[in-house]
């Protein structure tokens, strides 16, 4: 498996407000060929900014960016506008958060797909485009005749399928999915997730799946990154995160959702709400909500440290110089 998308030490700061808002802070992640990578976190943790930064959608006038985004080894940050435009959707595409608003309300499904394809397949014959539209819609289980409809004539689930079809129309290498099932009922969610999994196997693209729903990520993704207040606070194979998540926040997230399959468990929440990115608390940003905070947490920011190969966590409880009995005790409580 080769690395297809690599984000290296990416930081994004919004400069259009005072104080400036550091929305993404030194984030590194990598996605391999045909891999599903999950990014977990609550609203306001910087997930959306991260997505937009990866896709180079943030205008220079409002953000300060550091670090690199490499797609197939090519640094997207150094590309000029036109090269970036050409690369979009051919190599990397997006399934946006709310398919309800992501489709142009006054264009038919077919026209929206056609316009995107025409922007990239400049030499294509109309027949090829039509054939591809039909083929892609069929892949997401939308009957051919529905392409003449407008978004408002479709159900929420169908709109979401259309959004997926749009993202797959040009068969990109990586598809970024931002909360792809938000606002849909559980049955429809389930169907769409299964379809994403099937399509991913069939077409062989890599997925960067962003969600607040930990159980969904653990089920679908091979690797999970947990974000809090603009930083990655834990990352590792999803199995490890699920069974041996170390960070109190990670465990809180897992406890929030019952697994899609399997036995019922009591659902716990994390008290409090995520901090304002413009006014982060000192030390570990999670300490005001953390049930196991120790004095160090209030003034020292923990860095991401490997606890096992491929499993890293940023938490003072898991840094080597903490007495091991305290760590054990905290594990028992969870």
């Amino acid at each position, binding site marked *: 498996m080769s690395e297809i998308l690599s984000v290296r030490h990416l930081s994004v700061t919004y400069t259009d407000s005072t104080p400036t808002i550091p929305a993404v802070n030194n984030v590194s992640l990598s996605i391999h060929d045909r891999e599903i990578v999950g990014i977990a976190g609550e609203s306001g943790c910087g997930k959306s900014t991260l997505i937009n930064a990866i*896709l180079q*959608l943030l205008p220079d*006038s409002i953000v300060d960016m550091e670090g690199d985004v490499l797609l197939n080894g090519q640094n997207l940050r150094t590309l000029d506008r036109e090269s*970036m*435009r*050409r*690369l*979009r*959707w*051919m190599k990397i*595409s*997006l399934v*946006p*958060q*709310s398919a309800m*608003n*992501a*489709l*142009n*309300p*006054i*264009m038919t499904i077919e026209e929206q797909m056609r*316009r*995107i394809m025409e*922007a*990239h397949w400049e030499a294509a014959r109309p027949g090829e485009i039509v054939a591809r539209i039909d083929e892609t819609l069929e892949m997401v289980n939308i009957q051919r005749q529905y392409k003449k409809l*407008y978004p*408002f004539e479709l159900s929420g689930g169908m709109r979401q399928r259309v959004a997926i079809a*749009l993202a797959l129309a040009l068969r990109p290498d990586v598809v970024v999915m931002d909360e792809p099932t938000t606002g849909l009922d559980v049955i429809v969610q389930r169907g769409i997730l299964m379809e994403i999994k099937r399509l991913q196997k069939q077409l062989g693209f890599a997925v960067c799946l962003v969600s607040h729903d930990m159980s969904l990520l653990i089920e679908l993704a091979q690797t999970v990154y947990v974000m809090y207040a603009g930083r990655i606070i834990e990352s590792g194979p999803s199995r490890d995160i699920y069974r041996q998540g170390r960070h109190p926040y990670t465990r809180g997230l897992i406890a929030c959702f019952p697994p899609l399959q399997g036995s019922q468990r009591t659902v716990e929440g994390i008290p409090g709400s995520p901090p304002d990115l413009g006014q982060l608390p000192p030390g570990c940003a999670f300490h005001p909500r953390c049930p196991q905070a120790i004095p160090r947490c209030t003034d020292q920011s923990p860095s991401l440290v490997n606890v096992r190969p491929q499993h890293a966590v940023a938490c003072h409880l898991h840094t080597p110089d903490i007495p091991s009995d305290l760590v054990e005790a905290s594990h028992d409580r969870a």
Partner: protein
Amino acid sequence: MRYVRRRLIFYLIAFWTSITLNFLIPRLMPGNPAENLMMRMHGKISPYALKALEAEFGVFQHANLAVQYWRYLIALAHGNLGVSITYFPIRVSTVIGQSLIWTLGLIGTATIISFVLGTWLGIWVAWHRHTAWDRLTVPVAMFTSAFPYFWLALIVLYVLGFVLGWFPLSGAYSNTLPPALTLPSIADLLYHAALPALTIVVVSLGGWILSMRNNMIPSLNEDYIQLARAAGLKERTIMYQYAARNALLPNLTGFAMALGFIVAGGILTEIVFSYPGLGFLLYQASSNQDYPLLQGLLLMISFAVLLANFAVDLLYGRLDPRAARSEV
């Protein structure tokens, strides 16, 4: 089709309301203006014409209001708007018919130019909203749309017509060149229409720019615009096909309101330029207290505005697929 039918019914009701208003106004005014008019006209016009006036305004008739209203509607159905006093004994319908074409040509064309130009400028400044152009356009547009039409007409007439002598001072065509479908005549017509049209366009332009800009800016933040960007569509496509096409819809809805003001401004502009349209006629009718002509004009202007609005609604129905199913 259901949308078209609903709109049609609405405009029929609106037209019926304006007909009824037209019937009621002279009958509800204090001091019985129509009766005064009769007194004034006694001996000056034929007894037959006097009878016609009486019937029209219900003066000296002892029929009740309902019967009068019925007769009024019947007369209207026959296109009978009475006889003009200013142009006695020419029928009001004939007098209006001669002026209508000028107003349609002038105000109609100027409105379309202003709408298209203003909408396009609104799209453009919204797209470039972080630039100096936007910061300049907004206050200038606000200021120019606050000009009274007739005042700008006076200034334009003075500077471009009187001082510089580039354009004719009044009328719609040269006396030596009666309107015809020949090249010199058409050039002459355009030459005469230039200043009044310029006035209407300059004053009404700002409103279209501002409203299109204000519709465009929220539309630029819509998720589908962000998706179109992420999808690598060309900027022009995003600007016109995605953002502007959606932002145009509320602007068309605002057309109904704006049109009334533009027509009013156009009427005053016609008066300043002595342009022989409905507005100038309205002024004459008002000055001469020519009530039949006044009433006929009010009806005609209302009808024209309603018709234009209906046309815009039909356009809206074609541009917005949701309209066909809307409950409005």
